[in-house]
């Protein structure tokens, strides 16, 4: 049996001393004096240990006292002045934050001229021609191989008419044609379903840009009139660039992020 258990076993069997309670009471009454004596006299490591323990007890006592104090008096809580002041007619409404006024059109025009754009996806994996096109064998003996079918998502404008089938070299299937893109505003983190106006640049090559192929990293122009953006001069903005962020041929939809 462990050492300390013998003491307990004896206490169970024979009980305590007769004057146990009295001695205990008196010892506790004297403990105040003992504590103060120790606080004064203890030195060295013992002293440090004692001081630490005493401080912890003091802090705890202070906390409980404060807690008791609080319940008796009620204090007015001063609201902090918050950010984002609203006039009274907007206070009860939670407005979804809308896109704010944009950067200067002059700056945008300058950027366009310089050809330098700060885009979210600067480098994109290149798409090889055999991945982009599927060879279509035509002719009576299926030996002619000059036709190609595009295997990626494309955009054709609203007034698009195919060339006569005998002469069209590139076929853009209607199943892969998209007119709308899910465009996310990077700061507001909300996504809108906006119409595509045109394909501005495909990083894989100028031929793909002219065909209107949209792969990951393509810059497209979208119609943002529903966002209600206004330039500082007061003109309404209706077209902005966005960059495609997914592989539309795998997902069946075009996700893009707006370039602000």
């Amino acid at each position: 049996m462990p050492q300390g258990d013998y003491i307990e076993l004896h206490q169970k069997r024979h009980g305590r001393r007769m004057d146990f309670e009295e001695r205990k009471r008196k010892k506790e009454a004297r403990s105040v004096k003992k504590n103060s004596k120790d606080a004064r006299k203890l030195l060295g490591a013992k002293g440090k240990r004692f001081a630490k323990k005493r401080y912890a007890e003091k802090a705890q006592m202070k906390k409980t006292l404060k807690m008791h104090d609080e319940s008796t008096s009620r204090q007015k809580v001063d609201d902090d002045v918050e950010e984002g002041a609203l006039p009274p007619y907007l206070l009860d409404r939670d407005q979804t934050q809308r896109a704010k006024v944009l950067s200067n059109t002059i700056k945008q025009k300058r950027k366009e001229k310089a050809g330098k754009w700060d885009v979210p996806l600067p480098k994109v994996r290149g798409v090889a021609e055999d991945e982009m096109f599927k060879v279509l064998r035509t002719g009576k003996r299926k030996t002619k191989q000059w036709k190609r079918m595009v295997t990626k998502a494309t955009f054709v404008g609203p007034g698009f008419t195919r060339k006569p089938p005998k002469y069209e070299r590139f076929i853009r299937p209607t199943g892969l044609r998209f007119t709308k893109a899910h465009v996310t505003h990077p700061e507001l983190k909300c996504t809108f379903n906006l119409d595509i106006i045109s394909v501005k640049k495909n990083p894989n090559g100028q031929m793909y840009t002219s065909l209107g192929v949209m792969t990951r990293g393509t810059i497209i122009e979208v119609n943002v009139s529903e966002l209600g953006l206004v330039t500082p001069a007061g003109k309404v903005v209706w077209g902005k660039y966005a960059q495609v962020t997914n592989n539309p041929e795998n997902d069946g939809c075009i996700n893009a992020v707006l370039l602000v």
Partner: protein
Amino acid sequence: MENGSHGSVLCQLVSPEGEHLEAPVYLPHNVGPPQLQDIVNKLLHNEEKLPYAFYIGDEELSLQLGAYMQQKNANVEVTLRIVYQPQAVFRIRPVNRCSATIAGHTEAVLAVSFSPDGRCLASGSGDTTVRFWDLNTQTPLFTCKGHKNWVLCIAWSPDGKHLVSGSKSGELILWDPKTGKQLGTPLTGHRKWITAVSWEPVHLQSPSRRFVSASKDGDARIWDITTRKCVISLAGHTNAVTCVKWGGDGLIYTGSEDCSIKVWETSQGKLVKTLQGHGHWVNSLALSTEYVLRTGAYDHTGKTYSSAEEMKEAALARYEKMRGNAPERLVSGSDDFTMFLWEPAISKQPKARMTGHQKLVNHVYFSPDGQWLASASFDKSVKLWNGITGKFIAAFRGHVADVYQISWSADSRLLLSGSKDSTLKVWDIRTRKLKQDLPGHADEVYAVDWSPDGEKVVSGGKDRALKLWMN
């Protein structure tokens, strides 16, 4: 039907309230608006020649009668009803340039207001200060600190001697516009934020002593500034009170988020009537005599008054002239996309229901002459209605985001609207088209005001700058 210059048309001149002026007369075809003006002036025995505008079937008459008949192919046998409307003698020029952008506030500007005489300007903002601005030099005059939270609404007393501002913590503070100092301690009593403040008209009491404030906690309180106490508390609404107006006949109108409008009398604070009808929050109230009550004794002549009695008499004269014989009309705009036209003194039932907006109506405002009513809505349009019958007249489209607030020019010919798309637009009432586009703010425009003398327009918004626009 051929018309020669010798032909004539049977016409009946009718006043805007519907009273016939004289018996129907035959007028020759070469009579146009200037001649009609002479006729009306003579028949009304006006001492000075007042300008009038003429309307046939809600369209303004700008041609000679003969040309008009030919254009419309109107039946010559039917009596032509021509409604004449008095126009303001003075003409306000439309503002078209921003004369100053005054920075100063460190948070969004939430409320702006010109004093009734048009000489001083005050603004309240989210940085808890009220600022007074000097209009001659277009620089800040005083910065008044004292509020603990955003300053939501400000109101000038109609005699121009005091400004009261209400904040988000429910306090109201009185300021002296000449020194920029606070008068006394803040008035507390409301438990939630103040949504609107309205002063007692100066023709009922001069100098101005009492004003009523509405709060989100559901009651409106009448305060007396000399005793600096809350005199009466108008409790009855079960939800926030969104707007309050002190009418010219001594009744207080409160609109609330509990979809009702309550009419109170001011000596005891008893509820007189409850106007029910809206299906959603009542956002804004407008009185037909509101402009006259706001400007008190001051008008376009710029006359100043030295004594309080003079002011009271002049204000009373202006009010009586404005009102005429008709009772005061009240219009309420609501979240249920409609507005009601009431005549509270007559009946509890609305006189007309104005539908047409596709989103909630945020602000309604009568023109200074009471003939027109404009409503600004979150569906990006401003609609113009007949101020007497409530009939729809025209919609002004041009904004690309919610229209927040509107303001009229003092001659009722131009309307200004400020919107979330950061532009202000001036609309011409006569041609019903956009007159001027005022871009320039960098962010949403929260508050607009047109000075009573018509010279300046002030606008403030989220971009913290106060813009003054002039001709």
